[in-house]
């Protein structure tokens, strides 16, 4: 399988990338681990791919009690990032270890994954539970969106066609917090049939799910199994809706238990 004919442009800096993306049917290419496969299937046929992978938007660091993850940080780089070695942030690395495979983690980026918005991708659940936001830039302006308002539907986000993600921010959980990510994967694709991220701490608890609906989402407060009983759950030939609902409750409980346990541990 070969992608349909496409022009390729390599962006040298952010302004250059935004200028290139103003062309009709242009698509930003980061690590390409989601985009290239769908271009090969010709599900996506952009006229122009703008390779943004050489922009200086890499790395994770903590500034003023906020974790900033630059969107072009690869999964592999995240696993090596010392900024994640914090009690309340354990869910991030735990999630990354299970994403794709070693080759995909070497190339795939966190921003590319978020912008692709696969409804079964793992990391959105973790970022939702941690209360993350994204910063998007267009040629005109920079704006911040809460991640909870970012995912609009399968493969659909609030990102405009001429916008690029330039930052992902996670407020540091307060002392005495713990987080965890637990999923049950489709054995062939590795995507989550149901995945749950939990944050537990003095400020309360939050659980987010992925793989079970049109988008990853935060569960309403309360007993997870009761909340899950009330949400719309997708089914398919691999996992009918009732089975997915059951799985969602199981992974949510397990993630909460692990997050509570970690909240009590010193690191």
């Amino acid at each position, binding site marked *: 399988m070969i992608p349909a004919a496409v022009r390729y442009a390599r962006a040298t800096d952010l302004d250059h990338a935004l200028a290139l993306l103003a062309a009709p049917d242009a698509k930003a290419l980061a690590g390409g681990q989601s985009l290239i496969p769908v271009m*090969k299937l010709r599900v996506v046929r952009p006229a122009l791919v703008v390779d943004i992978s050489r922009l200086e938007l890499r790395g994770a660091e903590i500034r003023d009690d906020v974790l900033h993850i630059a969107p072009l940080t690869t999964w592999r780089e995240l696993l090596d990032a010392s900024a994640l070695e914090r009690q309340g942030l354990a869910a991030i690395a735990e999630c990354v270890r299970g994403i794709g495979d070693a080759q*995909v983690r070497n190339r795939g980026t966190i921003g590319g994954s978020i912008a692709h918005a696969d409804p079964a991708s793992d990391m959105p659940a973790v970022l939702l539970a941690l209360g993350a936001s994204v910063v998007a830039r267009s040629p005109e302006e920079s704006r911040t969106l809460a991640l909870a308002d970012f995912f609009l539907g399968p493969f659909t986000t609030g990102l405009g066609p001429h916008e690029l993600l330039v930052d992902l921010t996670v407020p540091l959980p307060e002392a005495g917090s713990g987080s965890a990510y637990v999923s049950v994967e489709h054995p062939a694709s590795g995507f989550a049939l149901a995945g749950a991220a939990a944050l537990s701490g003095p400020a309360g608890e939050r659980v987010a799910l992925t793989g079970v609906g049109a988008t990853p989402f935060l569960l309403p407060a309360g007993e997870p199994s009761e909340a899950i009983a009330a949400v719309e759950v997708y089914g398919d030939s691999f996992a009918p809706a009732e089975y997915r609902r059951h799985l969602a409750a199981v992974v949510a409980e397990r993630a909460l238990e692990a997050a509570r346990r970690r909240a009590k541990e010193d690191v």
Partner: protein
Amino acid sequence: MPEVLTFVVNGERRSLEVEGRTLLVHALRDGLGLTGTHIGCDTSQCGACTVLIDGRAAKSCTLLALQAEGAEITTIEGLAAGGELHPIQRAFVEHHGLQCGFCTPGVILTAADLLSRDPVPTDETVRHALRGNLCRCTGYQTIVESVQAAGAALREVPAS
């Protein structure tokens, strides 16, 4: 519209014309004749097309060739030096790490990436690292043994 791609392949600077849509695996196989990089599934699942890009394993079917501009690529042909098998290749021969051999170039290059970070990987670490490389012959046990033996062999020779 062809464009010129210039990169370093197995230590040699190479230039060739590619289209925007040309995949790295096709540039290597059809453009440079390096057919040791195999196309198995062509859907980013099997890992037979794995090469090293700047030392890190990547699926060459899931990359536009032009994304590799300026990069250093190592294919299976680049591992053996002066007709001598690389220690990882030697370990796969000695420990029966292959049967039909189709997946082997990709497995070996993924193993090279792993062993460069972790020269003494546990069973579990090897299996996790090779999750993106499918083998339909061996059942993986001998592959895991080969990778661990290669790690031991690499510790005995100075890094090349």
